[in-house]
């Protein structure tokens, strides 16, 4: 038995810091709360999408070999956090994760003729992923499926590509996310099988992990901004003659929110770095990042609403908008129940380790 130590460095490089600054100012300026409101109910703003395209944000995390800028999952996560902070109505995460998957397929020699690659790379054609495989429902509820013309899914052991002339109709939801039901059996849908076999499973699972991590990042952003809004309100609002932030019943809720934000951010960053650099190490980290971001975002935005008292539940209040987004963004991936199922693979791994330890410890 030998000790294994790992580094615990969550700091951003200078380049990463600059990327965050750029994204922060871009989304803060362009994705104002008015823009977000105006983009409802569909949850998509074409102008903002054009800005995203024009600023080259769609190729940041795409390999150079297929026309991208060579960045990785970590950069996508940093973008995801900034998108979450303004609830930006653009399908950047779904699109880029899907393009990364398709790039990986291209890398193994799969040809993707059913898709106009150049248009997709530029974002003129939006693509999305169907992160879970609930084919027992007949159709799949697809994030960004109401704005995408191409959806990549996993069915019967194969990675498939579904395309339509126009996006599917949105399935209405409280968060006004552009989710839609897609089915290969739909007569408007053209389906191509891209890859089958073990390699397909591996590539798909990695893409699924990337989707969870990047989506977790967007939830981190939602929580972070909710935390700041609630803090600001608690400092401003007076009751019984004092600022309500002086009440422990309020300030401790704000402390709890902060703990959730920090841990969710750190887990997401760690999962991104390790998935990118050591995909075989602790594959459960992606599901952990998503599960924690989901529950933390659900409870933190609820607390942030509650700290506002009655004002929080009015549609006028910004905080109620962020609250609404959370469940739409998080549940479309199947929810914590499915994440826990994947996390539980770590139980079997650990059970084996413990048996090994028990055996070896007598030989110490």
């Amino acid at each position, binding site marked *: 038995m030998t000790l294994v130590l790992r580094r615990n460095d969550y700091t951003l490089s200078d380049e990463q810091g600059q990327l965050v600054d750029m994204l922060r100012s871009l989304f803060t300026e362009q994705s104002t709360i008015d823009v977000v409101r105006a983009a409802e109910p569909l949850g998509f703003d074409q102008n903002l999408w054009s800005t995203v395209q024009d600023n080259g944000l769609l190729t940041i995390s795409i390999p150079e070999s297929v026309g991208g800028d060579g960045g990785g999952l970590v950069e996508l996560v940093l973008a995801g956090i900034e998108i979450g902070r303004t609830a930006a109505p653009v399908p950047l995460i779904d699109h880029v994760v899907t393009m990364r998957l398709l790039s990986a397929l291209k890398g193994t020699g799969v040809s993707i003729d059913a898709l106009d690659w150049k248009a997709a790379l530029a974002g003129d054609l939006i693509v999305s992923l169907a992160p*879970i495989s*609930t*084919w*027992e*429902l007949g*159709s799949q*509820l697809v994030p960004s499926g109401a704005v995408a013309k191409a959806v990549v899914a996993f069915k019967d052991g194969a990675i498939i590509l579904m395309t339509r002339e126009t996006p599917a109709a949105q*399935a*209405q*939801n*409280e*968060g006004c*996310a552009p*989710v839609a*039901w897609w089915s290969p059996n739909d007569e408007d849908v053209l389906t191509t099988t891209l890859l089958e076999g073990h390699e397909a499973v591996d590539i798909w699972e990695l893409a699924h992990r990337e989707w969870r991590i990047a989506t977790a990042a967007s939830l981190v952003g939602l929580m972070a901004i909710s935390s700041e809004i609630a803090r600001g309100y608690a400092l401003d609002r*007076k*009751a*019984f*003659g004092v600022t309500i932030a*002086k*009440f422990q*019943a*309020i300030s401790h809720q704000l402390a709890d929110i902060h703990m959730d934000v920090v841990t969710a951010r750190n887990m997401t960053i760690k999962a991104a770095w390790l998935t990118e650099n050591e995909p075989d190490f602790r594959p459960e980290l992606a599901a952990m990042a998503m599960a924690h971001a*989901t529950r933390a975002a*659900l*409870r933190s935005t*609820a607390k942030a*609403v*509650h700290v506002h*008292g*009655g*004002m*929080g*539940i*009015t*549609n*006028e209040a910004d905080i*109620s908008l962020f*609250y*609404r987004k959370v*469940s*739409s963004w998080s*549940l*479309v*991936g*199947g*929810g*914590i*129940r*499915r994440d826990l199922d994947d996390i539980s693979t770590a139980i079997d791994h650990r059970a084996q380790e413990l048996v090994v330890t028990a055996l070896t410890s007598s030989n110490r």
Partner: protein
Amino acid sequence: MDFSQVELTSDQLVFEKEIRELISQNWTPNLAHIAVDHDRMPKSVRMEMSRRGWIHPELAVEAGGAGLGEIELEMITNLFDEYYIPANVSSSLLIPTLEKFGSQWLKDNVLPGIRSGELTTCLGYSEPDNGSDMAAATTRAVQDGDTWVINGQKMWTTWGNESDYVFLLTRTGAVEEKHRTLTMFLVPMNTPGVEATPVWILGGGRTNVTFYTDVVISDNYRIGPVNDGWSVMSEPLATEHGAGVVTEGVSPVNGSMGAGFSRVFQKLVDGAIQWAASRTMPDGRSRLEDPLVRAALAEAMLDLEMCWNAEGELGKPMSAEALAKHADKLADMAAPEGLLDFGVDGSIAAGIIASERQHAPGTAVYGGTTEIYRNNLARRLGLPRPY
């Protein structure tokens, strides 16, 4: 101790049948609309109920009731719930207050209509800058001979756009004197200068901001002594909070608000059960056989039973928090469909879950935040007032 079923008398069975008919003829239930606490009973139903003395059936016939009892009142509540009709709330709170503090003029001219249910009321307590801290009210009432001139603004005037009267908390002295310079009025909403502007809330409900601009009313509309509004308001407020509920009888013990939220909670659980019954696992078996689904539903049912057993004031915070917790948990259980609005393809009953997730945060603030309830409970336990 008694938890036995009430054997309904033949009169009561007739009563039930009549109400069912009355409702069927005047109302179509909207199954998508499970959280009805910001809607008012439809006028057609109310007028028919009122004509029969059934808005407050426990009152004597002469007093506008029907000389019936607690059981009939509980029957109405349950039937209204079954048909998704909002219950009659605020007016009931005011009857004892008007009897005790109302001017003779109010007793003669307004109280009968409130008793019978012909007239409706709403509550004007909170203000934009004063939510739970009602003693900080700034809406001003200035006496001018036999009349009063009112100026100010109230928040959360639910039903303010469709009520005959507002039970209004006003300031009649220095704000610094807190609860010692408050005075209550019953202001006719059709008085010039009263205006209601909608405030839409999570879940789609409507409440209002109401504006009072140079509203002139007769002193007849005053309730209780000048500057004694705190005493006048405290009883209906306590009743709203669910205080003083006796733990015997046929009414639920968890207070009016707690019971209302528990009924919504029941519908949430029913929706989740219907979702599970209509879904299969990849292996073809019903989701009702999925151990994790069963555990989630069993936990929800356990908490529902817990809420029904919360006494009086405890009912509201406990049911509000259980509702929020399980709206989240059941949405997760039913993910991804749990995020879909009612009526959307694939949502089936899951729309109830999504809608309840929107409704739940409000339940934790209506009638005072859960923090205020805990403060109050701590006081009742003999603990000192928090800082």
